[in-house]
C-alpha cells in the first residue's frame, strides 16, 4: 500500500439530541493511500455521510484522530479548515449544489477566488476545466438551463478547481439516469487514472464495482474492506 493520504484512527462522531446521544461513527480506523479509488457502502443511516463530512473537513470527530496528508485536523481552527477545503479537497454532491445565480464559468471560479487567485488566472483555469468535462460551449448558461448530468459535470469541474488531493463524492450519481450516471462514472475513472484520489459514497452495488476498493460500514463501524485484485 502506498503512503496513506487519509488516515482515520479510532474516530468517533456522536450527536447530542436532547438527552439522547446518537453515535454515528463508533471507533472507525481507516487508511486510504494516494491515488486510490474507494467506494463507501452500507445501509441507510450507517454513517456514510457523517464519515464523508469528516473526511471533507466540514466536521470534526468527537474523538480520535484524522490525519490528512500528515496533518492532524483536530488541531486546526476554522480558518485553517476552510483553507484545506479550498485547496486540498474537492466536493461532489448528490444534488450538484451549484449556485443558481451564477453561470457555469462563475460556478467553477468560486473556489479559485477563495484561494486568492486573480481574475485572469481564475478565468483561464475555469475555462480549461470546463473543456475537460466537455462544457466549454455552455460557459454563460445558468445551472437551471442544464441537464442533471451536465450540472454534475460542472460540479466535478468545480471540485477540480482546487487541484485537490482527494475528491469526495456523496451519491454523485444518485439523481441521474443510468446513461448520465455512466458518463459521470467514466469521468471518475479518468480522474483516477490521472492520479486523483477518489472517495465516493454510494448505495448502488454496480457503482461500487467501479472502485478498486469497497469499504462497508454498518452501524458506524467498519464491516468489511475489500480490494479488487487488479
Amino acid at each position, binding site marked *: 500500500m502506498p503512503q496513506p493520504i487519509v488516515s482515520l484512527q479510532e474516530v468517533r462522531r456522536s450527536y447530542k439530541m436532547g438527552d439522547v446521544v446518537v453515535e454515528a461513527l463508533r471507533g472507525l480506523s481507516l487508511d486510504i493511500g494516494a491515488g486510490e479509488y474507494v467506494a463507501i457502502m452500507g445501509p441507510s443511516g450507517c454513517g456514510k455521510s457523517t464519515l464523508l*463530512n469528516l473526511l*471533507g473537513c*466540514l*466536521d470534526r470527530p468527537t474523538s480520535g484522530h484524522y490525519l490528512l496528508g500528515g496533518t492532524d485536523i483536530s488541531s486546526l481552527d*476554522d*480558518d485553517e479548515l*476552510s*483553507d484545506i*477545503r*479550498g*485547496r486540498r479537497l474537492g*466536493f461532489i*454532491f448528490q444534488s450538484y*449544489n*451549484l*449556485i443558481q*445565480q451564477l453561470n457555469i464559468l462563475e460556478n467553477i471560479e*468560486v*473556489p479559485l*477566488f*477563495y*484561494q*486568492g487567485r*486573480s*481574475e485572469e488566472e481564475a478565468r483561464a483555469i475555469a475555462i480549461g476545466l470546463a473543456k475537460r468535462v466537455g462544457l466549454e460551449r455552455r460557459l454563460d448558461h445558468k445551472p437551471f438551463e442544464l441537464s442533471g448530468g451536465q450540472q454534475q459535470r460542472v460540479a466535478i469541474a*468545480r471540485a477540480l478547481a*482546487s487541484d485537490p488531493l482527494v475528491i469526495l463524492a456523496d451519491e454523485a450519481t444518485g439523481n441521474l439516469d443510468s446513461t448520465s450516471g455512466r458518463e459521470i462514472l467514466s469521468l471518475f475513472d479518468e480522474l483516477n487514472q490521472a492520479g486523483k484520489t477518489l472517495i465516493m459514497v454510494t448505495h448502488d452495488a454496480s457503482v461500487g464495482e467501479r472502485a478498486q476498493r469497497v469499504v462497508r460500514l454498518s452501524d458506524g463501524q467498519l464491516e468489511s474492506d475489500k480490494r479488487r485484485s487488479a
Partner: protein
Amino acid sequence: MTARLQSLFSSRLKRSIRLGLRSLWLHRLRSLLTMLGIVFGVCSVIAMLAIGEGASFEAQEQIKNLGSQNIILRSVKPPEDQKVSNNQNNFTLDYGLKYEDISRIQATIPGVTTIVPARVMREYVWNITLRVDAEVVGTVSWYPAMRNHRVASGRFFTETDQLAAENVCALGAEMAQRLFPMEEPLGKTVRIGEQYYRVIGVMEALTKAKTDDTGQSSTQQAVDRMFIPLETAKRRYGEVLFKRRSGSFERERVALHEVTVKVEDPEQVVAVSLAVKDLMERNHKKKDYDVVVPLELLRQKEKTKRIFNIVLGSIAAISLLVGGIGIMNIMLANVTERTREIGIRRALGAKRKDIVTQFLIEAVLLSGAGGALGVLLGVAIPFVVSSFAGMKTIITPLSPIAAFTISALVGVIFGLYPALRAAKMDPVEALRHE
C-alpha cells in the same frame, strides 16, 4: 509584493460588490422597498435642513441690517381706549418718543456712542407722473453708517444740509428705480405735496425678505424709504401729523418715530438695552414705544434654530433606525434563503470572514444606495422649493456627505448581525438545508 496583495484585495472587493449588486438586482422590488426607509429619512432631513438654513440665513441677514450693536426704539400708538373717552374731532393724539428721551439716554446711560433720531412720514413721492408710496424719513447725517445702509451713488446729506434745512433727499434703491426708470436720478427733483426735493444720493438695495421676523410692521423693508434732513422734516411737517382715516381727520403729535441707539461695546448691548427699557418705563406712563434689540432677536433665532436642528436630528435618527431595522429584517431573510449557498461556499473554501464580508457588503450597498437616492432627492427638493415657492434654501455641503456616510454606516451596523449569523452557520447543517 504588497502591490500585488493590494490589487488582489481591491479586485476581490470589486468582485464582492458586483456579486452584491447582482443579488440585490435579483430582488429589485424587495431591495427598493427596503431602501425606502433610508431614502425618505435622508431626503427629508437634507431638504428640511436646507429650508431651515435658508430661513435662518434670511432672518439673520435681516437682523444684521438692523445692526447688531443697535437698540432701536419706535413710537407705537398706545391702545385705542385712551382715545375713545375723548372722542372729539379736534383732539390731537400725543404719543411716542420725545427729544427728551434722547437727552435722557445720553445723560444717564454710559456706553452709548451715537443716537439717530428719525421722523417717519408716510407720503406719496412724485416724479412728474410717476408715483411711489414711501416712508419719508427725517433723520441725521450718520444714519447710513449706523444702520449698515450705505449710499450706492451720490452722497447722503451732511450737517450743513441739516442746519440749512435743505430740501435734499436720498432715495431708496427700489423707489429710485421706479421713479426714474430710464434716467439717472442724481440731480433730479422729486415732489411731495408742494415741496420739491433735490435727489443727492441713492441708497444700496437691502436684502429683501418675505417676512419681517422682527415682529414689527416691517418698516425697513416692506416700504421703500426716502431720507431727508431731520431739520427739513421738522420745518415742512411740524410736530403734528394729519392722517385721513375713515372720513374724519386724525391728528397725531409724534416728535420722533424712531430712535436708534448704538452701543459702543458689543458685549454691553443687552445690559444697555435693559437700562434703556428701564429708563423709558419710568418716563412714559403709557406704553407708547417699543424697544427692539436686534442682537436679542439674533440670539433668539439661534436658539430656535438649535431647537429645530435637535428636532431634525431626532427625526433623522428615528428614520435611520427604522430604515436600519428594515435592512436587518431583509438581510436575515436573505441569509435564511441562501443558507444552502453559504454551505456550498464554505465547502469550497470560504472562510467565515468571507461570508461576513459578502453579506455585509450587500447590506451596505442597500443602505448606501438608499442614502445616495435620498441625497439626490434631498438636494432636488430644496431646489424645487426655492424655484417655485421663492423660498431661500441653503444646502451646506456637509449635510449630504454626512447623510450618505451615516446611511452607509447604518448598513454596517444593521447588516452585521445577519452577516455574523450567516458566517456562524455550521457548514454541514447549511448544506443539508433545503
